[in-house]
C-alpha cells in the first residue's frame, strides 16, 4: 500500500532521515519505535507529506506522491492522521470537528456526515459529547475524538504520531482501546509510540529506528525476545 524508497530529510544542516526504504502492506499494523531524535515522527510525517522529503520516493496505492504534480490533498483524504496534541478545532463543536472535512470536500452530504459522526462517536463511547466544544473534554476524550475525526473521511490508512504521549497516565488506556479495536477491524495502521505493551500486542511488525535509519525490524514476538542489534538491546533495556 505504501512503498518508500531511499527517503532522506534534512532540516538545514540537520540530516534527520538518512535513507529509509520500506513497504507497508494493506492490513499491516506497523509500530515504529526508537529513541527520541531518531526520526520516527519525521518519517511518519513524510508519509502524508506534512514534511516534504529532501530526496527519495514515496508511493501510495501505486501513485508516486512525492511527484510535484501529485494532488497532495487528494492523497491526504485517504490517509488519516492522529497527532500527539490532538489538534482538535477549538472553535467548533465535536460534531463540526468531525463533519467539517467530509462536508467541505463533498465526500458526504451534511446529513450523511452527521450520521457517520454519530455512529463513530457511539463506537468510541462519546455519543453524548456531540454538541460540546473540545475545551470541555479530557485529554483522553479529545484524542478519541481526534481519531474519530480522521476516521470520518474513511481513510485507507491511519497514521498515529505518539497518540498517547501527551496524556495523563490514567487516560492512555482508553485511547489504546480505541486503537486496538481499530486494528481488529482491519485498518492499516502506522503508529509511532512509546507504548511497548501496545506495540507487542497489536503490532504486526516493529520498526526500530535510530539516527535516521531503520536499524532493525521484525514481528513483535521475535523483536522483543531476541533483538539482534546492540542499539536495540540497549534501548529495550531502558524502556521495558
Amino acid at each position, binding site marked *: 500500500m505504501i512503498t518508500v524508497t531511499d527517503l532522506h530529510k534534512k532540516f538545514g544542516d540537520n540530516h534527520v532521515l538518512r535513507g529509509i526504504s520500506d513497504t507497508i502492506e494493506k492490513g499491516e499494523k506497523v509500530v515504529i519505535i526508537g529513541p527520541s531524535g531518531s526520526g520516527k515522527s519525521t518519517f511518519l510525517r513524510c508519509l*502524508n507529506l*506534512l514534511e516534504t522529503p529532501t530526496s527519495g520516493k514515496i508511493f501510495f496505492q501505486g501513485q508516486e506522491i512525492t511527484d510535484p504534480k501529485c494532488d497532495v*490533498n*487528494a*492523497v*491526504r*483524504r485517504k*490517509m*488519516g*492522521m492522529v*497527532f500527539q*496534541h490532538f*489538534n*482538535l*478545532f*477549538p*472553535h*467548533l*463543536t465535536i460534531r463540526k470537528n468531525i463533519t*467539517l*472535512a467530509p462536508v*467541505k*470536500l463533498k465526500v458526504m452530504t451534511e446529513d450523511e456526515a452527521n450520521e457517520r459522526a454519530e455512529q463513530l462517536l457511539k463506537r468510541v463511547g462519546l455519543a453524548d459529547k456531540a454538541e460540546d*466544544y*473540545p*475545551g*470541555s473534554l479530557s485529554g483522553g476524550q479529545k484524542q478519541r475524538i*481526534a481519531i474519530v*475525526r*480522521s476516521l470520518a*473521511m474513511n481513510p485507507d490508512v491511519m497514521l498515529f504520531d505518539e497518540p498517547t504521549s501527551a496524556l495523563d497516565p490514567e487516560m492512555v488506556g482508553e485511547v489504546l482501546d480505541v486503537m486496538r479495536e481499530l486494528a481488529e477491524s482491519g485498518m492499516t495502521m502506522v503508529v509511532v509510540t512509546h507504548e511497548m505493551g501496545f506495540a507487542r500486542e497489536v503490532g504486526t511488525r516493529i520498526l526500530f529506528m535510530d539516527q535516521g535509519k531503520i536499524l532493525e525490524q521484525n514481528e513483535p514476538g521475535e523483536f522483543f525476545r531476541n533483538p539482534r542489534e546492540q542499539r536495540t538491546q540497549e534501548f529495550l533495556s531502558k524502556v521495558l
Partner: protein
Amino acid sequence: MIESIKTLIDRVVDILFTGNRYMMLLNGLKLTVILSLCSVIIGIVLGTIVAVVKVSHQNRPRNIVLRVLNVIVTVYVQVIRGTPTVVQLLIMNFVVFASSRNPVAVAILCFGINSGAYVSEIMRAGINAVDYGQTEAGRSLGLSYFETMKSIILPQAIKNILPALGNEFIVLLKETSIAGYISIQDLTKAGDLIRFATFEAFIPLITVAVIYLIMVLGLSKLLSMLERRLSKSDNRH
C-alpha cells in the same frame, strides 16, 4: 442654579432647533455612520487579504507569486502607515479621483484602504497566534491551504483579535471626522457649520462630541457582547 439651567436649555433649543438645524446634525450623523460602516467592511476584507498574503509568503518563501504579492502589500502597508490620513484623503479626492462627483464614495474607499493597512497587521498577529497544529490537522484531513485558512485558522484568529479589531473600528469612526476636508457634511462638519451660522461654538461642538462619545460607548458595549458570545467554546472545566 435652576435659572441658569433653564437659560442653557433655552439656548440649546434656540441654536439646535431654530430653522431645523438639528436636521443638519442628524444628516451628518447618518453620513458618519455610513462612512464608518462601509469603510470598516472594506478595511477588514482588505486587511484579511493582506494578512493572508503575508502569512502565506512566510510559510512558503519560495513561491514566486506570493513573493510578488508580498512586495505589493508591504509597500501598501508602509505607504498608508507612513502618511497622514488627511493627506491620503486629499490625494484620493483631488488627484486620483479628481473627476469623481461622489466624495462620499471616495472617502469610503480612502478610509477603507487606510483601515486595511492597520487591520492587516492586527490580523497577521492573530493568524500567527493560532497553533500551527491547527493548520496541520486541517491539511492532514485533505483540506486545501486556503480552505484550512478560511474554515479553521481565520475564525480562531478573528476571535483572538476581536478587542483589537473593535478598537480599530472605534479609531475609524472618529477618523471619519476629517471627511469635511473634501466637503462632506458629516457629523463634525455639520456641527462646525452650525457654529458658523450661529456664532456659538460651545453648544454645537459639545453636542457633536457627546454624540461621538455615545456611539463609541455603544460600540464598546456591542463588542464586549460579541466577544462573550464568541468565547462560548472556551468553557474549560
